[in-house]
């Protein structure tokens, strides 16, 4: 009988979780507070288990029923932390980013593919002034973050040291992972708009600060041009060495990216989608990650590789970014 099969498989799954020396039937009987005979009937699928029993078993053995049962091809399990609306802690978000990159970095075979609409959020930590500004913006974008609206931006705002310390770790870990990024010339727009917005919005960013920030964006762009030129990742102010991972940069003139990320970890792939501005949800679903990977490969075929080779197009691309920065800087009032 079909129904028995599913229940049977569910109990078989639990059995694989238990240490060998434990009696499976005794364990189930004790947990569900039933006799050994009743436990047998359930394990064999002769008697259906109730919702309440199902819950007890799932909680005890940390089983995700969604993962166990949703075998349909158009349903995917994503995971991610959204933070606690009541007591949001920005540092926890930074730590989560660090944790995810550290997991990727821990694999011998690894690669990150980034389809960007903005500068990769983590590269702002290369420059303390930009890190301070982006943290200022991000904290205001998070749901649940309580902010005093009148507080003006400062490069050394209270808490910056802690944020920057985690940010430095993120940069260090990110720079150990071979990466392919697909950009276009609009990648710097968001950061520029944010500088303009907070400068115009009640002067939360002063004119002097805005000038510094524009200069720092240019400094970051210059650094990215350098790593694209050598095709290797290294920290700003440093030089590549033999251990430096590969950096590939593509310019795609047709599409605008969506900040999605695909990570290869050994033989496994994980896709991360960006949502609610600064959050990412990830899935290891094979069908889904394969679809994302195929799409990325198609996009790369239609893009221009401007790292390691094609100096002409690389210069043109980065000059366009610099021109945009200069024009917008000149418009500051």
């Amino acid at each position, binding site marked *: 009988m079909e129904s028995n099969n599913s229940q049977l498989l569910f109990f078989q799954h639990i059995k694989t979780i238990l240490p060998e020396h434990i009696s499976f039937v005794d364990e189930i009987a004790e947990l569900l507070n039933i006799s050994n005979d009743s436990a047998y009937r359930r394990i064999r699928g002769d008697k259906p288990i109730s919702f309440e029993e199902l819950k007890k078993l799932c909680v005890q053995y940390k089983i995700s029923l*969604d993962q166990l*049962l949703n075998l*349909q091809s158009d349903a995917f399990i994503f995971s991610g932390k959204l933070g606690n609306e009541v007591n949001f802690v920005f540092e926890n978000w930074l730590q989560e980013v660090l944790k995810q990159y550290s997991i990727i970095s821990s694999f011998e075979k690894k690669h990150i593919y980034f389809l960007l609409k903005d500068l990769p959020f983590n590269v702002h930590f290369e420059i303390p002034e930009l890190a301070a500004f982006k943290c200022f*913006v991000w904290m205001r974008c998070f749901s649940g973050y309580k902010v005093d609206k009148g507080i003006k931006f400062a490069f050394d705002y209270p808490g910056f040291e802690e944020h920057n310390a985690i940010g430095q770790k993120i940069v260090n870990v990110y720079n150990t992972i071979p990466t392919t990024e697909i950009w276009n010339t609009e990648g710097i727009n968001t950061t520029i708009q944010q500088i303009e917005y907070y400068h115009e919005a009640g002067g939360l960013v002063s004119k002097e600060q805005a000038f510094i920030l524009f200069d720092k964006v240019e400094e970051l762009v210059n650094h990215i041009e350098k790593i694209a030129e050598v095709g290797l990742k290294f920290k700003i102010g440093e030089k590549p060495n033999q251990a430096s991972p590969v950096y590939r940069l593509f310019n795609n003139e047709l599409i605008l990216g969506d900040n999605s990320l695909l990570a290869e970890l050994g033989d496994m792939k994980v896709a991360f989608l960006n949502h*609610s501005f600064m959050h990412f949800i990830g899935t290891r679903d094979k069908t889904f990650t394969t679809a994302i990977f195929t*799409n990325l490969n198609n996009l790369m075929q239609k893009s221009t590789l401007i790292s390691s080779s094609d100096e002409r197009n690389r210069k043109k691309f980065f000059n366009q970014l610099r021109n945009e920065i200069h024009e917008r800087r000149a418009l500051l009032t």
Partner: protein
Amino acid sequence: MEMNNSQVLFFQQIKALLPPNISLADEIAKVLEISTDSAYRRIRGEKPISFEDIQKLGITYKVSLDQFLHLHNNGFIFAGKLGYTSGDFVVEYLNIMLQQFEFMRGFDHKHIYFLPNDIPTFAYFQVPELAAFTFFYYKKSLLHYEDMKDMKFSVKDLHEEHIKLGIKVQSSFNRIPSTEIWSLDTINSILRHISFYRDTQIFETKEDIMCLYDKLDGLLIHLEKQAELGLKFNHGQSPDKDAATYRMYYNDLMTGDNCVLAEIGDKKVTYINHNLINFMYTRDEYFNNYTLNTFEIAIRKSTQISLVGEKARVRFFEGLRKKIQLQREAINHD
């Protein structure tokens, strides 16, 4: 009895996912292949449902059992298509969209929040040339159809069935109140596609390009009118007494991500765009409340340009038109 209570609640959750005109018992009877009487007994909790039945119902209605049983694991179920199976992608794509909008229309309370990073696709459906261009772009550059490889685009290549279906989708969407948060960059996507195809000589003639720019101008006039009146209506028509409300905001701080939040009755659904063309959705309550919160934050940082804010609205639409004009001039200088 505890068991029955959980079972009753499980069926109540499924009922909330069905359009109001659908009978829960009939639906359950069909899915579980049992009589309506047997379905009633299960719905009332008189007869326990089997593990297999739970699985069938969970899969059919995309109910998160982890969420239902309060198994906290930071997981969210998303559902959605990764590919298209039928012979005509456009028909399948439009029909999926139409089903979603028609489902929402069945409820008294409905509202769509949209944070577009390009002009909402359904807006193009009311202008046949723009709709044709959008589908051409999808098939050629996103789905990489082999038979599109050497194909060129002409505004004359209109497909009657697609146009009719597209207008039907747009008309259905226009009956659902919505809130959209745009930025000046929202128009960049289509302008980028046109300019890329121009550079790679995908257009049959220069007139095709000019026609698309003209049609985009026309669409902006319509959208500006909708914003001015705060009502949704079909292109070339006037709002009727049942017109749904339209709220439009201008935001220059956050870039859109094509995220959609739909309020349907007392439930919410979040749609996330992925792989540039596909959408996946979740009914996860926690996730959806978080998304709503994000929309509220975005709205607080935005300027309302529908119904009120005439000066900002005029400046905003002028900004969009200026971008089109710059591209038009670039062609004239070629």
